[in-house]
């Protein structure tokens, strides 16, 4: 694509502005700098002791807290998991309403560019270690939206994905199987997506910014 398109204007609320303080000085506010933490993510080492890390990995695997964020149509397939028929709580899986307390992000189905921005924010706000499950074909290769102007085709370009669950849509049983697979990976200590994200932060950011043109947030949302 040609790069000579104009970049969209900065949002009003993020523009630098001058305000008058109560004692009469004028000061400049740079919202991005003043309101947001600017630090980049770092690679978080595992616990010093292997045994402790093993315990932690077991606990992480047995306590998957899913962020309650249905990004696309696949979210409808997650609801049955809470019902008596599937009862995912048996497996230590539960839903949390805030990314701060979640460690699993299920990208449920197609992901539009606009939603991607919110997904990135939410993902970055989750504490390390965190896991991403791509649900449905759309997250794998775009699925039926392969030629859409606003739906991404490969989730792993933007976020580190631990498990893909194929299907359009995958059934709840498939989801459960996927979560069991994720648990296996976590227990094996191989689910280091968050650290991978921090390591290849620039690559991920470049990919994200390539599709999200009005980048109206700090580079990393703490």
């Amino acid at each position, binding site marked *: 694509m040609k790069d000579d398109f104009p970049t969209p204007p900065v949002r009003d609320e993020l523009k630098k502005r001058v305000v008058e303080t109560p004692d009469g000085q004028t000061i400049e506010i740079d919202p991005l700098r003043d309101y947001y933490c600017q630090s980049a993510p770092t690679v978080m080492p595992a616990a010093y002791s292997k045994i402790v890390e093993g315990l932690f990995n077991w606990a992480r695997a047995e306590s998957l807290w899913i962020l309650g964020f249905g990004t696309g149509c696949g979210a409808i397939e997650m609801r049955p998991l809470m019902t008596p028929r599937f009862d995912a709580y048996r497996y230590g899986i539960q839903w949390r309403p805030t990314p701060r307390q979640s460690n699993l992000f299920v990208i449920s189905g197609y992901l539009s560019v606009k939603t991607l921005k919110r997904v990135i924010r939410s993902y970055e706000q989750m504490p390390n270690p965190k896991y991403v499950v791509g649900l449905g074909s759309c997250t794998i290769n775009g699925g039926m939206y*392969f030629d859409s102007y606003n739906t991404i085709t490969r989730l792993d370009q933007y976020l580190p994905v631990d498990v893909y669950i194929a299907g359009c849509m995958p059934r709840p049983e498939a989801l459960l199987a996927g979560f069991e697979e994720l648990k296996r990976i976590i227990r094996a200590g191989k689910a280091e997506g968050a650290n991978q994200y921090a390591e290849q932060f620039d690559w991920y950011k470049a990919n994200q910014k390539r599709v999200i043109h009005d980048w109206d947030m700090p580079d990393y949302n703490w």
Partner: protein
Amino acid sequence: MRDLYDRLKTAFPLGELTEQRPDLAFVTVAKEQLRSLLLHLRDQEGFTHLVLLTAVDWLEEGNFQLTYLMNNRLACRDLGVRVMLPRDPASMDSIHDLWPTAATYQRELREMFGIDFPGSPRVDEDFILEGWIRTPPYRRDFDTLKFSDEVFAPRPGRASSDPTEFMKQQLYPDKT
């Protein structure tokens, strides 16, 4: 419908009437006559409700077709008023003062088709897309597949099939 068309015809230079259903018909009107026709329909003929305002890209003719779909609640009738615009530059008078809801449709058309409605409230702001900087995506000269391939990094190895052929092959492999 026909009697309505006849009545209108006396006052406005209208194109042909296309009757799709007994209670749904379309007429074409010149860009300049649109406003007075809508006003007449709203105030005299009881078409008080603007159901939608949408556009069709007639790329080959170099036109946009705007469709103003009006509804007469009492008579349970819909009438679509069509206006043809040149694609370049695409600009149309705003009718947000007749129906405030029209402003929202016009923002959408501005964003998706690049049709300008000078004076319509917030018409230049982002509507659905955030920071879209390329050709308006609903214009038919915008190639979404090409765009998708270039921007979204398609997964290598993905293949597309024609559903009919593919399913035939899957279900009755012996017949092909």
